[in-house]
């Protein structure tokens, strides 16, 4: 039942996404710009770690893609609320978890697709990384998207207008990016900043993917990264499902 319901919701929203090719490709733009115009600046710098600057930058860019993309996915729900679509679905027997999972799985698909587009571009600019590492990177993008997407939908269900929602999300994404070491590794940071960044879940994700990109699959970073990624996803999906169950908006 849950599987069928999720597949139904997933199919509906995926079809919607596929209809707008522009929206699908637009998300790649920001990371691509960083890749082309920021990446080359790093090639000579000592960034720590055992790989090239590209092996440090690209993991951060992929997670940035997930961070900014998935955090804003709640906007679509605000629109659907005003159209009455959310209520209409909640009146049917469809499982509440499916209403959330179908949507976040669609988001994960879209963002992994964009990540898959980004990697060849990165290879063209100079990235060399093991295939296993690249695939692991995609898995982390998917998990991040599921987490942030769920939280975004949950927040959007509680908020009444997009005017309230935008600033709320804006206030969270930029600091998150900076404090997680997505652009440059936090190993370069002074002690106080490094310590602060350990409070950010995304720090553990990017460290894990950076390790994967140099072929180190069994490090402590990888362990923490997996734990945080999975834990965050489970927590976020639980919160999101609860909101779909009880929202009285």
């Amino acid at each position, binding site marked *: 039942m849950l599987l069928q319901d999720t597949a*139904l919701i997933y199919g509906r929203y995926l079809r919607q996404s596929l209809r707008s090719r522009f929206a699908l490709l637009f998300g790649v733009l920001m990371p691509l710009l960083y890749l082309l115009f920021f990446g080359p600046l790093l090639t000579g710098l000592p960034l720590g770690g055992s790989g090239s600057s590209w092996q440090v930058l690209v993991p951060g860019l992929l997670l940035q893609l997930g961070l900014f993309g998935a955090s804003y996915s709640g906007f679509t729900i605000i629109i659907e609320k*005003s159209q*009455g679509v959310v*209520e*209409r679905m*909640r*009146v*049917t*027997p469809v499982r509440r978890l499916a209403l959330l999972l179908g949507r976040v799985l669609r988001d994960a698909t879209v963002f992994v697709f964009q990540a898959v587009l980004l990697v060849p571009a990165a290879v063209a600019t100079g990235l060399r990384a093991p295939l296993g590492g690249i695939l692991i990177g995609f898995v982390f993008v998917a998990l991040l998207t599921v987490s942030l997407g769920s939280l975004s939908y949950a927040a959007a269900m509680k908020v009444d207008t997009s005017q309230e929602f935008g600033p709320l999300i804006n206030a969270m994404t930029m600091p998150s990016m900076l404090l997680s070491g997505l652009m440059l590794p936090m190993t370069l940071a002074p002690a106080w900043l490094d310590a602060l960044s350990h409070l950010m879940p995304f720090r553990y994700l990017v460290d894990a993917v950076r390790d994967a990109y140099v072929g180190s699959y069994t490090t402590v970073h990888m362990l923490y990264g997996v734990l945080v990624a999975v834990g965050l996803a489970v927590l976020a999906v639980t919160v999101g499902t609860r909101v779909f169950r009880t929202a009285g908006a």
Partner: protein
Amino acid sequence: MPGTHKGEVVGYGYVPDGFTTPLPAAQAARQGPVEAVRRIDLTVREGEILGFLGPNGAGKTTTLRMLTTLLAPTGGAATVAGCDLTTDPAGVRRACGYVAQSGGADPNIGVREELVTQGRLYRLTKDQAAVRAEELARDLGFADLLDRKVGALSGGRRRRLDIAMALTHGPKVLFLDEPTTGLDPGSRADLWDLIRRLRDAHGTTVFLTTHYLDEADALADRLVIVDKGVVVAEGTPGALKLRHGGSLDTTLQDTFLAITGRGPAPADATPVSV
């Protein structure tokens, strides 16, 4: 008697005879203690068209949303089509259909796709849903629009689609929230015929809220008038006119004024033909 605390009032209901007996209770709105619904006890008989009439802010939509499991009541009990609202919400969902005031179809999706998805949300198979979509479109008179986008439908047709979506699974009870608000007089009359047909042909119980007194008068077998979250009068239109207006020739408008002390809705509620 239930008590009150912090602006939440627990409703109190009883279960009388009658197949369908919805008994909603109270809930406090999110922004501070606003009591949308204070205490509502009512019974709806199977196969009847019940008109839920009241001024703005009377609690009509909130009541409907509680009965369709969208909102959790803070107290009281309700049974919809034999299923208890708190212990068997899934049963309630299977047995009822709901058409919100602003509908619920995505304007950017095709009519057929929305109908088929709706069928599958109600657990029909893909084939069953496709057949049902065609059937509904035929019965409700928009078969020629199946391949258009929902947003391309005019007001009256769009409302028919909304109703079709609520009827996908053949529900025993249909909840309509202000079904003809914003429609032209021709579409309104068409919709009234449709609602009557549904009840006559399928025995569907219809629970509709409305501002329009002519609609209440024309459609409803019985009326329940609410004001400020409580029931203030109930009965057939004729009985209400006699009791509160003095005679059967009283208009429902005057009857309503007599009961609530003011009009049902702001000036734009009644349709004006030009």
